[in-house]
Each structure stands twice: as structure tokens, then as C-alpha cells.
């Protein structure tokens, strides 16, 4: 009898904590949808952010704010692509290196540094990109600087996911390659990487979904732009930067919610995509 009661209490706690864990996410999505859905239409994706004057006129007339976040979306995609181009190959190489040198002293050092890098506050990485790129390469705020900051954030995630994915491949697959006389580098390139491809893709998507909402490092590097910019040497907007700008403008508060809804939806999409890819790889 006593055991039954204990069981019930335990179950109750499990349900309670499960509820506490998921309620923020439900509340966030609820709030974003309620507050943000009205702004989301075709113009939202096709037009640049309005200026405060346009927004004010629309507000006073009781209309929805014109314009959208095209400059932010293109900027975000542009910088994510550049950051991925930098971070994915380098992260992949270092991940393979760690996998191949499992217990070696220098590999352990690299692994520790990777962990430390992952813990560095993003604003600090933004500062570093500011000094490396803004001050010395592009002579001003630029998409490249923002991308470098984001790439440094992505790198540790890619490195660790690469190593973990490779570790899941059975040793026997590798040996099958060796037993056919396949040279070492080809075993990595033609057997290990293709075999773990969906895992590597998952890791990259998760890394992207982590950095896509970063704001602080972009303030110090990409700065923002009121138009679509696809020049790596020029200041560039991004969705989280726009959210920050909308927030600071009393006429554009509605756009904060719709942009946040968009960003949240995109991150959720990336997460679900990567989860489903990963499920496929486990089969």
C-alpha cells in the first residue's frame, strides 16, 4: 500500500517537472503567435524594414506597419553561409583529427581548448572579430566581421559533433577499407565522412540554429543596414539586429513580435530538420 502511494507521489513529481520544463516554450510560442501573426504576410518577406516615420503614420491611421524584414533575412542567410563556409570545413578537419588521435596528449589539449572556446561569451567573440576584421581587414563594420564572429561560435559545436559522429561508426567499416589497401586519407574522405554524412549535417544544422539568433557579437561587427546588402565588406543587417532596433523604436514594437516569431519558427524548423535527419542515421 505504502509503495503504491510512493509511486503515485513520484509520478506526480515527474509530471509536474515535465510541465515546468515545457511550459516556457509553450508560453513563448503562444505569445509570439498572438502578438506577431498580424504582421506576417507576403510583404514581411519581400520588403525592407520601414523607417520610423512610415511606421508612425501607419500606427496613427490604425493600419498595420508597412514593410518587412527582407534586409534582415538576407543578411542573416548571407552571414550564416559565410560563417558555415569558414567553420564547417575547419571544424570537420579538427573533428577528424581529434577522432584519429583519441588519447594523444596534444589531441586532449585541442579538445580542452575547444571546450573553453565553447564557453567564451559571444560578446567577447564579437570584440575579437571587431579587432581582427573591422579594424584591420574591412576597415569598417562588415558582413565578413559578423561572419567571423559567428564562425568562431560555430566551430566548437562542429568539432565536437564531428568527433562524436565519427565515433559511432564501427571500427570494422574502417578495417574493411584497410583490408582493400585503401590509403588512409581516402578511408576518411570516401568511407568515414560519407557514412557519417547525416550525422555531420545534423551537427552543422544544430550549430547554425545556435548562432542564428546571436545579437551581441553582430552589434560590434555587422552593425546593421536598412537595405539588403550582399557585399562582405559592407555593414549588414540580420534578423536579431532588426529585433533589437525595432525594440528601441516606440513606433515599431509590433514588428518585434513578428520578427521574433519568424526567428523562433526558423530555429524550430532547423531543430526538427536535424532531429529527423539524425533519426534516419540511427536506423
Amino acid at each position, binding site marked *: 500500500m505504502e509503495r503504491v502511494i510512493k509511486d503515485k507521489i513520484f509520478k506526480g513529481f515527474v509530471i509536474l517537472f515535465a510541465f515546468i520544463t515545457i511550459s516556457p516554450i509553450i508560453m513563448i510560442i503562444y505569445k509570439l503567435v498572438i502578438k506577431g501573426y498580424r504582421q506576417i504576410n507576403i510583404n514581411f518577406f519581400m520588403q525592407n524594414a520601414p523607417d520610423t516615420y512610415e511606421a508612425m503614420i501607419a500606427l496613427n491611421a490604425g493600419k498595420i506597419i508597412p514593410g518587412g524584414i527582407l534586409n534582415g533575412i538576407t543578411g542573416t542567410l548571407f552571414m550564416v553561409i559565410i560563417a558555415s563556409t569558414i567553420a564547417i570545413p575547419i571544424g570537420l578537419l579538427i573533428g577528424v583529427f581529434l577522432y584519429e588521435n583519441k588519447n594523444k596528449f596534444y589531441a586532449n589539449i585541442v579538445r580542452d581548448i575547444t571546450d573553453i572556446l565553447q564557453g567564451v561569451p559571444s560578446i567577447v567573440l564579437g570584440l575579437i572579430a571587431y579587432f581582427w576584421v573591422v579594424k584591420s581587414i574591412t576597415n569598417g563594420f562588415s558582413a565578413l566581421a559578423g561572419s567571423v564572429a559567428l564562425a568562431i561560435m560555430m566551430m566548437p559545436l562542429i568539432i565536437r559533433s564531428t568527433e562524436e559522429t565519427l565515433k559511432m561508426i*564501427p571500427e*570494422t*567499416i574502417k*578495417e*574493411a*577499407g*584497410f*583490408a*582493400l*589497401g*585503401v*590509403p588512409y586519407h*581516402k*578511408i576518411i574522405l*570516401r*568511407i568515414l565522412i*560519407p*557514412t557519417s*554524412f547525416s550525422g555531420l549535417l545534423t551537427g552543422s544544422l544544430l550549430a547554425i540554429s545556435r548562432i542564428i539568433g546571436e545579437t551581441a557579437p553582430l552589434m560590434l561587427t555587422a552593425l546593421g543596414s536598412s537595405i539588403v546588402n550582399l557585399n562582405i565588406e559592407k555593414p549588414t543587417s540580420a534578423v536579431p539586429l532588426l529585433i533589437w532596433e525595432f525594440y528601441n523604436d516606440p513606433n515599431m514594437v509590433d514588428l518585434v513580435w513578428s520578427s521574433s516569431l519568424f526567428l523562433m519558427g526558423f530555429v524550430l524548423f532547423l531543430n526538427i530538420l536535424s532531429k529527423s535527419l539524425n533519426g534516419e542515421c540511427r536506423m
Partner: protein
Amino acid sequence: MKDLIIKIENPVLDIKNLSISYNKGKYAVTNVNAGVKKNSVTAIMGPSGCGKSTLLRAINRMHELYPNIEVKGKIFLNNNDIFLMSSIEIRRKIGMVFQRPNPFPTMSIYDNVIAGYKLNGIRLKKNKKDEIVEKSLKDVVLWNEVKNSLKKKGTFLSGGQQQRLCIARALAFKPDVILLDEPTSALDPIATKKVEQLLIKLKENYTILLVTHNMSQAARMSDYSMFMYLGELVEYGKTKKLFINPVDKRTEEYLTGKFS
């Protein structure tokens, strides 16, 4: 002492004073001397951990992939020192099949068979490739089962089919010797029987060296048998003779199931 190890005339493989250690000073294989008869099935038996796999893996130089492993002694393939050959050459001439079927998961059945050529950058004409694939799959009696699904992934096959695919992959190089390390231990009895029948047929054209922890498999299939114990090659002779009339006491104890 002498008649414990049979002397093979004109061996395909000749193993001389072979010792192998994973950790300095501790030998997993000690001073093995043995020849292997051409076009025969030679079984290597012994209790688990006695060094069967370690010995087998020395023969196509798998050990050199792991820097800590020390291999002493010599191995000759048709009188050529294998340690002087290139790694691709040695592995084209000596194929290997593993305990668990390990087709390349991203490759089709077709590509798995010619993986050795593809991955080594050996270019072949399409009809030459088709010919090798068909011949190898016919050799392992898999052709009729897969000829309409050559584009499918090798991992879609059953365990027994996968193992035959892996044998086909080794055969595609037309090796002199095929090494098999407990190739049926992960298979069900029916699939096991198919692989056994296949190996007996293959010895017409190939020399087969088979590690097995299953005595009756060695008795059923092999022409010659080696018995290893604690890294030592204890006894080696014609299978019939070894099973009926073992010389060494340890061989006899093993065959009568005193340890396993």
C-alpha cells in the same frame, strides 16, 4: 616434436618465426612457423583469446595500422616477402573477410563489389566493371538473388547475404589467398551452411585460411587444421589426422571439449 607441425611442400603462404605483441614484452602470438597449402581450406582453431585473429591479421599486414603493435618474423607469399610489397599489392593478393559483415553502408551492392578498385582510384571500363561484379557475385552464389537490385544499398541485405557480399568484395581483386576471421559467427545456421558450401567450392581457385572457434566447422570444411593455444601453434596437420589422432595432449583436450 617434429610431427606436431606438418611440412607443406611449395606453400602459397609461408610463415616464419612470427611473433606479435600488442604491449611490449607480452606476446599474443609466439614464434609461429607454418606453410599453407595452395587450393586448400586451412582452419585455425583454438579457444578464444589464443591469438587466432592476431595471427590472421598479420598475413595481410592489418597490424601496421596500429603503431603500438610489434610484428617480428617473416611471411612469404609465393616466395615473396610480404613486408616488401606495397600495401595495395599485398591486399589485392590477400583478401580479408571479417567476423561481422561490414559492407560499406553508403555504397550500392554493385559499388561494394568493386569498392577495392573504386577506392584505390583504379579506373575500369563499364563493361569490365560489370563483368567483375557479375563474376564475383556468381562466385559467392549471390547473383541470382541481387541481380535486379544492384543499385540498392548493400546494407539492405540479410546478414548472410551481406557476408557473401563481403566475400565477393574480396574476390573482386582475384586474390591468391582469402583470410576469413570467424565469418559465420554472426550468422544463423542456414546462412552459415551457405557460406560453408561456398568456401568449399571456392578452394578450386583460391587458397582459404579460416579462423573458427567452432571445431565441427573445422572438421566439416577444412583440409588442414591448426590448433593454437596461448599464442602458440601447438599442432598443425591434415584435418582428418588431427581430429582422429592428435599428438599433443592440449590438442586432444581441446578436441574432447575439456576447454573451450
